[in-house]
């Protein structure tokens, strides 16, 4: 569905006399000057590729709210280069083919200047080739390693959220030092799970640990108990990264299997994004740890930026909607939309963006970015952007379930998540 967001112009409505004076003045200008004025006062259109329907709809709903809040803030601050920002939303159906169609709409139907959004990696991978062909800057908020891996193109960037490889690598020191060195991993038997299996195995060995076992669970599985018997008895840490509709069953059966006497557990919050921790069956998670891209619950050391960001998006201190406490957000990921929009704004300002002819300059301006301070534009924390790989690096948060809420126990450093550059997109031509 196409939606437009424009700033409130009710206070600027001109009087008839003022309008006539303006028209008279405009008529005295040469034709080129009138055109130039009309061109520069056009809104900047940013296409938001949204998981409105399909398996990613919960993410899409919160990505939408976050993006609207960010655009409202940017417009309230004067827009981009004095021009208002217009958000144009298209549903990608969490489907790669529709994702590519959405980019075509942005570029060829709506005349968008750039596009952003979307979480699921298969949609990004389905859309990115089209972004390259359309020469449309495409800022993804996916946390997939696809951008930095080098398989995409110069028009695709991920400056607003860290990638899964970096996240996994950054967690490993904490796991080895605090939870245990013998790790068993339970992961979904497809690409998302393989990233965890491969990168975490490498990272834990680098920390002096070892993988006791890696247990792949088929994506069609609905019952998990029989896999738990494969967990070696000397396992010190159980690393779980299940996603999808069966995740609640997975956690419940895991709890029933161990009965509170199992190994330490650490998981990715992706499993429980938009899910209330008070949901029946999740009480077994008490005492276990999670990776969070951004802590869902307001913490004791909450920054002023997080306070303002929550208020702007409409999220309470428990990570749920201010208007509906049962509507839990995707807090660990959605900040990426907020930060990405601010980065796009900064890149357009830095490149003096005027229109589609400046798209390459906008990308070059983004590539030139390096450090991003913890600020209102980056409420999740400071970042280090790598212009060669088009990927940002940042802090990761490890929280522990205590009394039904996630309390922060460790914040990784940016350096914990750095890795060698797999690609240099700046060598590719536009």
């Amino acid at each position, binding site marked *: *569905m196409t939606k437009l967001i424009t700033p409130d112009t009710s206070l600027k409505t001109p009087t008839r006399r003022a309008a006539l004076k303006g028209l008279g003045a405009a008529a005295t200008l040469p034709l080129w000057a009138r055109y130039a004025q009309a061109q520069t006062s056009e809104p900047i259109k940013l296409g938001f590729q949204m998981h409105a329907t399909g398996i990613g709809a919960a993410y899409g709903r919160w990505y939408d709210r976050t993006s609207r809040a960010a655009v409202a803030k940017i417009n309230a601050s004067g827009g981009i280069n004095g021009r208002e920002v217009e958000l144009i939303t298209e549903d990608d159906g969490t489907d790669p083919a529709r994702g590519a169609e959405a980019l075509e709409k942005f570029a*060829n139907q709506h005349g968008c200047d750039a596009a952003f959004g979307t979480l699921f990696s298969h949609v990004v991978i389905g859309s990115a080739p089209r972004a390259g062909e359309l020469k449309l800057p495409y800022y993804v908020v996916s946390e997939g390693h696809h951008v930095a891996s080098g398989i995409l193109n110069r028009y695709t960037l991920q400056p607003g959220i860290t990638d899964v490889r970096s996240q996994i690598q950054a967690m490993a020191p904490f796991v080895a030092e605090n939870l245990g060195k013998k790790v068993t991993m339970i992961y979904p038997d497809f690409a998302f799970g393989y990233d965890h299996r491969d990168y975490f195995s490498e990272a834990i060995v680098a920390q002096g640990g070892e993988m006791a076992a890696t247990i792949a669970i088929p994506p069609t599985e609905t019952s998990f108990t029989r896999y738990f018997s494969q967990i070696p008895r000397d396992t010190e840490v159980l690393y779980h990264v299940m996603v999808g509709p069966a995740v609640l069953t997975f956690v419940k059966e895991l709890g029933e299997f161990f009965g509170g006497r199992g190994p330490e557990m650490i998981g990715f919050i992706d499993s429980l994004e938009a899910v209330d921790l008070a949901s029946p069956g999740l009480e077994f998670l008490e005492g276990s740890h999670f990776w969070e891209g951004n802590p869902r619950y307001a913490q004791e050391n909450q920054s002023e930026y997080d306070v303002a960001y929550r208020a702007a998006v409409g999220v309470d201190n428990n990570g749920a909607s201010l208007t509906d406490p049962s509507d839990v957000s995707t807090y660990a990921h959605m900040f990426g939309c907020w930060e990405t929009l601010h980065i796009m704004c900064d890149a357009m300002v830095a490149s003096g963006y005027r229109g589609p002819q400046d798209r390459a300059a906008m990308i070059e301006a983004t590539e030139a970015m390096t450090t991003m301070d913890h600020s209102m534009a980056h409420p999740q924390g400071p970042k280090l952007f790598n212009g060669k790989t088009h990927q940002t690096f940042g802090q990761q948060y490890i929280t522990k379930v205590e009394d039904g809420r996630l309390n922060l126990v460790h914040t990784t450093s940016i350096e914990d998540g750095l890795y060698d550059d797999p690609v240099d997109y700046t060598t590719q031509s536009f």
Partner: protein
Amino acid sequence: MSVTAKTLSLHLGLIAVLFALQFILGPYQQGNIARIMVLATYAIGYNVLFGYTGLLSLGHAMFFCAGMYGLAIPMYHFSVPAELAFLMALAIGAGFSLLVGLLALRTIGVAFMIVTLMFAQAVYLIILYAAEWTRGDEGFVLVQSTRTLFGVDLTDDTAKYAAALVLFATALLFTLWLVRAPTGRVLIAVRENEDRASLLGYDIHRHKLIAVVISGTISAAAGAGYALLFGNTGSTFATVQYSILPLLWVLLGGAGTVLGPFLGTLFMYYLIDYAADVTNAYMLIAGAALVALTLFAPTGIAGTVRKHLWRWLP
């Protein structure tokens, strides 16, 4: 005008109109029509089996993916040029559909539907599990510089449209020839009355197998074309959804008509495109339209035209 002349005029006319449209349409609509032509090629393949032979498959996505990965894996992993990779995709599609046909045609009716569905699920899971080659659910991207055919850059919108038109026109004219040729007439006879066709001495099993292979190969060509023109693969294209879609396109456009698959694909594509501008519940609108069409035009768009206007429509 003879029936042959009218038939040729109509189908060649459609190809001419599609050729001319690229000069009239804006870039967005041009992109849509290119995509529709590739998907309509898939529907044409499906129609050979369902519309003309009367065999309802619920697993045609496996043929689409046989072509898609048959082209993409050699290009991506072995740097095979696109021309050769496309031929390899056709060969893989033909071989795979022959294998599936030999096994699935041991069943009939509902069992055939279920067996094709199960084969397609197996292919879907293979794509997921063989992630080293397929990158599973995420799929992979064909590098822009490799997507050239005989020196033509297929990432260029004009070239892409032309390639989609060649693919579609080839499938359309081949099907038109097939359904008017003796083999095609036997396929129709099998659909209309299998016992009678058998009594007349036709080898039913052989003709059904021919239909499966032709249908699967055209679907594979569409899959290969999709990967080549749009640059990506992924297990999504092997899901049940992509087996149901050609069935809907053919039913909407008119099963057992040469033009039906194109009309059905065109109608449904734009129905979803426009409905999505109105509401996020666009599939509800699409569903309501499908119910209405089934109630009031059960033979589909081209089928209704044949019934009331052009009885000669093949």
